[in-house]
């Protein structure tokens, strides 16, 4: 009999896989109630480290052309495809669905990722405008990235909601900190291994596992976070985040669709530029 080599599930910060600085883990059970893994229970300090890493990556991620960002995101989908079996096995274990259903979710998540990848170099055309002002001025509006966005991943699905939240943020040119689903965190860790082996620059995506409600007030109050996707939070935790987030007027949104242009636009700013026309 061969003994399985089991994986240690760690955090993903700045392109590295550290354990929580707090030394905390929580016991994750599978759908049948059996022990599955000990994912890290990220601390406030882990989150702050992730923000530093994400902030540092904003300029570089933005300097890349939109075409380049699109290719990098597409590359993630390519690597995900090769890990379909692993993602599906984890979903089976966590959600208790059969393999076919799990595989369908993985495929939907990959397709969702491809969908967002394709938006990178089109969002400005669709979401921007030239504006007919009454005067001799050229006037145009372009969408730009917001900056650092924290995503509380959907709690109800292991991979699909996670991908929708993350890919939309990245397509808009932002860097991200993802707080994985508390109940289904393993897909997020496996996704981080995909990201680390794609061409996504270190720091562009940071993934934490742990207790969403514990992290929520710290995320809400962090002054270097620009936006928060609260889709994976309870209403009560969302309210706490909104209350704390008012201090620097964070852009805070909850979404109900996995694939929507609105998800990208929510974490972008629109900039309008005027210039006189004349000889």
């Amino acid at each position: 009999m061969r003994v399985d080599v089991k994986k240690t599930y760690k955090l993903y910060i700045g392109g590295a896989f550290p354990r929580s600085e707090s030394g905390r883990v929580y016991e994750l059970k599978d759908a049948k109630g059996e022990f599955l893994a000990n994912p890290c229970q990220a601390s406030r300090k882990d989150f702050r480290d992730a923000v530093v890493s994400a902030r540092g990556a904003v300029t570089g991620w933005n300097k890349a052309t939109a075409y380049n960002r699109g290719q990098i995101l597409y590359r993630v989908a390519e690597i995900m495809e090769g890990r379909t079996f692993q993602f599906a096995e984890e979903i089976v274990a966590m959600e208790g669905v059969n393999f076919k259903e799990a595989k369908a979710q993985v495929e939907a998540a990959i397709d969702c990722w491809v969908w967002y990848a394709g938006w990178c170099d089109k969002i400005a055309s669709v979401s921007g405008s030239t504006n007919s002002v009454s005067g001799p001025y050229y006037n145009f509006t372009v969408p730009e990235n917001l900056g650092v966005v924290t995503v509380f991943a959907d709690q109800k699905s292991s991979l699909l909601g996670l991908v929708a939240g993350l890919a939309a943020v990245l397509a808009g040119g932002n860097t991200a900190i993802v707080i994985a689903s508390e109940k289904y965190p393993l897909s997020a860790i496996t996704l981080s291994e995909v990201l680390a082996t794609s061409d996504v620059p270190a720091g562009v995506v940071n993934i934490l596992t742990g207790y969403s409600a514990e992290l929520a007030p710290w995320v809400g109050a962090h002054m270097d976070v620009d936006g928060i996707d609260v889709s994976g939070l309870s209403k009560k935790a969302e309210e706490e985040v909104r209350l704390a987030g008012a201090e620097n007027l964070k852009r805070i949104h909850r979404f109900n669709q996995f694939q929507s242009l609105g998800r990208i636009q929510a974490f972008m700013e629109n900039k309008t530029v005027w210039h006189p026309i004349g000889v």
Partner: protein
Amino acid sequence: MTNFEYAPALESTAILDIASQYGLFINGKFVDPKTAQYFPTINPANEQLISQVAFAGETDVDDAVKAARNAYEKSWSKLSAAERGKYLFRIARILQERAREFAVLETLDNGKPIRESRDVDVPLAAAHFFYHAGWSDKLKYSGLGNDPKPHGVVGQIIPWNFPLLMLAWKVAPALATGNTVVLKPAETTPMTALLFAEVCQQADLPAGVINIVTGDGSTGSFLVNHPDVDKIAFTGSTGVGKAIARAVSGTKKSVTLELGGKAANIVFEDAAIDETVEGIVNGIFFNQGHVCCAGSRLLIQENIQDEVLEKLKRRMASIRVGDPLDKNTDLGAINSAEQLSRITELSASGDLEGAHRWSPQCDLPAAGFWYPPTIFTGVTQAHRIAREEIFGPVLSVLTFRTPQEAIEKANNTPYGLSAGIWSEKGSRILWASQQLRAGVIWANTFNKFDPASPFGGYKESGWGREGGRHGLSAYLKGEK
């Protein structure tokens, strides 16, 4: 030497028919406030009483919200989009017809020069209604889905710096998208909103579609906290904006905020200096500097500092400060005693912290609230006058050596509303406009506004945009 002094050219106030007292505009009629309280509104240029205005309390706000809800359900949402738009076209036309009246009343109540209320505020307000009227039946082309829905009842709170124009920025898109409105004008500038209520009556706008409740911050707070208001739109200070964001954090209310700014106006060494000087003056002294997007931090490339400042001072010496009703006046009255004391206090901090103050010689009227056009040189980024919004005719001058330093200084603020760039080099302008974290960038111009042009801030300057296609999303429920 010939003296080219201007003779006074006063705009007459005979066109106005001001009542001694105004009620609240609820459900299509002026009604007495249930508080039975009124408060005075004065002309800041001479401190004389203009009229007494009703003070709306909690019950009054509730009445207004009920009227708006009733109108939303019974009339406004039943109307076809094209017909809804025709009401807005009507309003735009009546504003144009009564433009002179609005301009004079605005200048009386606000203190801004008649030249600005006549040439900027009122025509732009009419343009906003005309522009949005045409959107009413084209919302499916706004990029928000095939059939985007209005929120319902919208509570709107507007500031005193552009009373009628801010009303138009708020009311026109709200109505065009099918919402009904409860509007709270600023405490010190309620008059043109009340005249606008008459316009709504003349346009035969269905009762309750617009309700106007005058009052102070407490009135605004009742509106923000009213459970039957679906959406809040606010223009004003960042402090109040944050308080509103907190107040609605546990509700389903949607919010848009247009807040403060501390805009950098960047002058590169290759700028056309004479045009730039005009732009600097327009950037900070337009509307007495009571402009959230004012170019209040001038960043000059170090090697041209002396030339720019010399020409700027010469230009400032020709700014005419005085009676706002005089058509020659460039700089009118400060809107209130409270605002004047804030400008005075912040400017004093500039002296205390070691910046150098300069103002041209100018005689200020004895009555009313006045502040001379002022610049501070030798300002550092740590000075309060470089960080806090003064909201007055006070310019802080800083310098930079490299373009990168200019961008870093410009972005070194929690605000992100607007910025200016002066350069004759196209690629530099486009580079700088990309680097600046602000919602509106004026390149080789400043303080330009248009209903088709989205306006609004990054960072702590607010949430959302007003104007253009982008502004519609504030009043529609898009899919996300």
